[in-house]
């Protein structure tokens, strides 16, 4: 199902020479990246490679020390309606001390939905992801997998063009990981663009259309996924794919 848009897309997203330093120490440098609409870009690399930082910079949670981050429509990714059209899901889901339903209505209220609209949209969203039976459960009493699915549903409710996901399954068991990946496949099918940080090679193989391989704060490779897995172009990627510790 492809979605019709009244407003022009915020994509592609481009990062040009982006760097982020703390106290004079460069944590990431020279990040050049273009995210095209419909792509599922997986950021691969060991811990500390800078994957989370790249996501945070692109989403606007951090301000780059150098370089520029731009969206196609020239805004900060809000689109013309003023509503931010990219959303983010974190490694450890941030659940407000409220019911699952109220977690959704809260985010929708922040996005400017009126009282009636947000209730309807929250209920629709829970049904869409088969989470309706959890609507009245306190979100923090749910399992880790349910919480992460709710976090993705909460982001989806805001109808983002692009969704950033920071290691969304790294703390989940295989069954919960599968449920989360099924949601992501559904989001891809809707034409949404995903940028996902992961150090799970299997997950990257299952989901990625592009792989951005990072190590030590730099982008080492940026290629179509099939090509990356068949013919990695750097010694670091070859070692990473062979399961060595970088």
């Amino acid at each position, binding site marked *: 199902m492809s979605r019709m848009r009244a407003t022009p897309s915020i994509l592609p997203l481009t990062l040009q020479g982006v760097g982020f330093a703390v106290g004079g120490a460069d944590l990431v440098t020279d990040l050049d990246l273009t995210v095209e609409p419909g792509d599922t870009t997986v950021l691969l690399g060991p811990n500390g490679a800078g994957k989370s930082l790249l996501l945070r910079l692109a989403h606007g*949670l951090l301000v780059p020390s150098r370089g520029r981050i731009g969206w196609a429509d020239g805004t900060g990714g809000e689109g013309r309606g003023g509503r931010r059209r990219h959303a983010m899901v*974190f490694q450890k889901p*941030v659940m*407000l*001390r409220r019911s699952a339903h109220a977690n959704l209505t809260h*985010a929708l209220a922040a996005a400017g939905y009126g009282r009636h609209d947000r209730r309807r949209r929250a209920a629709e969203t829970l049904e869409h992801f088969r989470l309706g039976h959890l609507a009245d459960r*306190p*979100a923090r009493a749910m399992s880790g997998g349910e919480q992460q699915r709710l976090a993705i549903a909460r982001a989806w409710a805001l109808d983002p063009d692009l969704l950033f996901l920071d290691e969304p399954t790294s703390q989940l068991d295989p069954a919960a990981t599968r449920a989360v990946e099924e949601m992501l496949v559904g989001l891809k099918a809707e034409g949404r663009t995903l940028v996902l940080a992961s150090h799970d090679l299997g997950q990257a193989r299952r989901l990625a259309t592009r792989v951005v391989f990072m190590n030590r704060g730099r982008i080492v490779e940026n290629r179509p996924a099939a090509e990356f897995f068949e013919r990695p172009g750097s010694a670091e990627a070859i070692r990473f794919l062979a399961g060595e510790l970088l």
Partner: protein
Amino acid sequence: MATDFVSAFAAAFGLIVGLDPAFLAVVGLSLKVTLSATLLAALVGLPLGALLGISRFRGRSAVIVVVNALMGLPPVVAGLVIFLLLSRSGPLGGLGLLFTPGAMIVAQTLLILPIVVALTRQVIEDLWAEYGDHLRSIGLTGVAAVPTLLADGRFSLTTALLAGFGRASAEVGAVLIVGGNIAGHTRTMTTAIALETSKGDLTLALGLGLALVGLTLAINVAAFAAGRVGARWAG
């Protein structure tokens, strides 16, 4: 000494069960002043503490240290400051508040405001560490994040308000100075206890003391139970 306590209990029981009008007036005024001060301190202190918890500015540490230090503000000093402000020749003398319950409420609000601000700051800072990424992601930053943080911190914040209420209900110095301990007008349980003790009526003083402790305990039990039930639900 043992008989003192037995007769004190008897006196307290008699005061409470007998619904002695003068006693009830004293208890009523104490509750009115203390609860009003707690409410005012909450209205000002909760948002202020929350903002202090999430904002970063030069001199923030100094502000936090000063607020923490003010938690130990001696009640007589708070009373003296309000007395000077409200006295006939003071800057707010025209209000005619001195030696009224209004003056007592102002003094106690000033006294417990630092407690509410300091404890709220700590609670909200911890909550922001957990919620910050998500709230900023959905566009709630700065003042816009405060309602969410106060709502979700409500069970921990009850403790901050109880601490403020406890300090207000227990103190005698500030209300004595600005209220004047006028019978039937500004006499609270604590000022009455101080007076009865100095007059030598230890039985009545102890009776009032027991009633005060009982009331404080009842309010804390109610707040604790409400908080426990709510916190268990919301995690």
